[in-house]
């Protein structure tokens, strides 16, 4: 049975993201203190990090690291697999076949597939096999073992989370730290130049500097 409530609760990760994001944006816009603005900005960015991480997570899934057992199973499958066993993931024709074999698998682990099927994001896919089917971009971390098996229906019991969003967000975190550093450095310089980091005081100081001559002479006259 489908209800609005269910729909909303299933996507609780979005709600967390949205609440965090709005808190961050609100802080950026309403606070006059430059440091507080930076904090808001960080909050805002963090919400996006969480968003990325949650879309890659499969509930019950582990980090995409092959354990010993899996390797044996794969090795077994490889014997019967059609096509030559792939050993060099970087060779381009192998990539093509890899890509081709990934494509037709219907239930990819990319979140979008899950959501549009109306299934919960965090419900483990019914078919563990397909859960393994890392999408094209994600596959670059494991090219040499997954070349052949999926097309031939190998079975691995372990469920993996999609690592790619985490990787992406590592990059974004680095960018975020750099931004924060530049922002804070600017705040320091502003404090040196103006003696304040309150936005309204900065504006007042600028106005004074620009139209200051008139105000000063008036003051002197009085």
């Amino acid at each position: 049975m489908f209800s609005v409530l269910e729909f909303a609760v299933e996507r609780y990760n979005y709600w967390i993201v949205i609440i965090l994001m709005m808190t961050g944006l609100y802080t950026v816009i309403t606070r006059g203190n430059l440091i507080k603005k930076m904090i808001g900005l960080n909050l805002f960015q963090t919400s996006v990090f969480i968003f990325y991480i949650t879309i890659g997570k499969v509930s019950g899934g582990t980090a995409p690291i092959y354990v010993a057992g899996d390797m044996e199973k794969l090795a077994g499958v490889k014997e019967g697999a059609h096509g030559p066993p792939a050993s060099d993931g970087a060779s381009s024709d192998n990539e093509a076949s890899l890509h081709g074999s990934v494509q037709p698998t219907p239930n990819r682990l990319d979140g979008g597939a899950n959501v549009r099927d109306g299934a919960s994001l965090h419900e483990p896919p019914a078919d563990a096999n397909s859960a393994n089917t890392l999408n094209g971009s994600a596959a670059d971390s494991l090219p040499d073992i997954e070349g052949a098996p999926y097309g031939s229906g190998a079975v691995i019991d372990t469920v993996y989370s999609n690592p790619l969003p985490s990787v992406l967000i590592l990059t974004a975190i680095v960018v975020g730290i750099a931004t924060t550093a530049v922002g804070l450095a600017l705040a320091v310089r502003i404090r040196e130049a103006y003696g304040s980091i309150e936005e309204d005081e900065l504006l007042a100081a600028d106005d004074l500097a620009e139209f200051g001559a008139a105000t000063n002479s008036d003051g002197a006259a009085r």
Partner: protein
Amino acid sequence: MNVIEQLPVIPVIALLVAAPVTILLPNGATGRTPYLWATLVSWAAFAACVKLLATVAETGPVSYSIGDWAPPIGIEYRIDLANALVLTLVSGIAALVAPFSLPSVRSEIDLRQINLFYSAFLICLLGLLGVTITGDAFNVFVFLEISSLSTYALIALGARTDRRALTASFNYLIMGTIGATFFVIGLGLLYQATGTLNMADIKIKAADAAGIGMIEAGLAFIIVGIGLKAAMFPMHLWMPNAYAYAPSAVTAFIAAASTKVAVYVIIRFVYSVIGSEFAFVQAALTYILMPLGIAGMFFASLVAFFQADVKRMLAYSSIGQIGYMLLGIGLATKAGLAASLVHLFNHGLMKGALFMAVACVALRVGGRSVDAFRGLARRMPFTASAFIFSGLSLVGVPLTVGFISKWTLVTASFGADKPWAAFLIVASSLIAVAYVGRLIEIILLREAPTTGPFAGPVREAPLSMLIPLWTLVAANVYFGLDTDLTVNLATRAAEALVSVSGLPR
């Protein structure tokens, strides 16, 4: 492995190596070493980009797999005509601003910071080239932030002349980061819907992705995010101050290059990542980009007229000109897209020349307010005439690039059965006539100030500044006569973008 095969990656790699090296170079008493180094490197990047453009024009799109990981899994650098054109523009402007910059930079920036300045300049160029060259959507974000971060630093360097550079830079940082984060959200949604980050691959997968809502939301976030970077009306608030208070040479570079790259990203995402065959993309073009473009054209041009600071005036004019590009994109025809690309290129030439001329005035007269331009024709004849020529180009006088832009845009509007758009374009360019004409009158007919901060004898700008300035002015005229490179290539580029994307006409 020969050099030509590696060509696509050369501009990025060379700059990536060269930028940190710049920090290590000694400044000496003049800062000449980092200056010469930056000039050399930017020329090398320009040469590589020109070679790329020639290759692409001859043999079609070039694809390069980073680390030999084939796309869509590995990161792909993909150069077709559209981005080859932008690459050439960006690196060309850098190759002119670099040799131009030293006298201006020395007068506006602490000598100890000169090597840091050039390092940041090269990093900024690296980011802009990277955004343009890459075929991977997430890579766009990374390079965008590389260029933005260095731009924040470059703008803040203007603080020695005017401390407002610091607040301008801080505001830009806040807005720019919000924009970039929106962009990342959009990418995340696209990734969620399609499961890939390679642009061409997103295009293929988006076509049969059932979760259309997610793609819609993704596009919305991307347009807002990049719109902030492109100073698309009404998200332009950071721009006038950032342009006005940045060191003059920096303004010349970012005004000519960085917003153009952002517009390019909009074109890229609308046409070749998502594809305009979606009804919602068409709607976004017609009901969002075009109205915002038109509003920007009028609003910003009107505001420009009332500015007392020439750099601010030109900044507002840039916002208006971005409006033309958005209008061209919003027409959603091949001709409109081509016109937009042409204007993107041409506007880089005009604004580069105008801001360079302002930099010369700021150096010699000592200010950038309208008063500093009084009687300029007699005080600095070469700078003044360069400003007038590029100003006329901005207005769209025949035999300049501005006219070519206007002609192609208006033709595209008629071609798209929107004659009213054509009249709006010419009407808003009449406002440009007013604000450029006002300045030309001041340059030509007013007497030079005899009292106040701008009085006193003024020398013509040094040759090292005049030569790049006039090279750009000459380009303004040359590309106004010979449109092989601009119009023809842009039309072909638009054809390629549209053929992927199934647009009418």
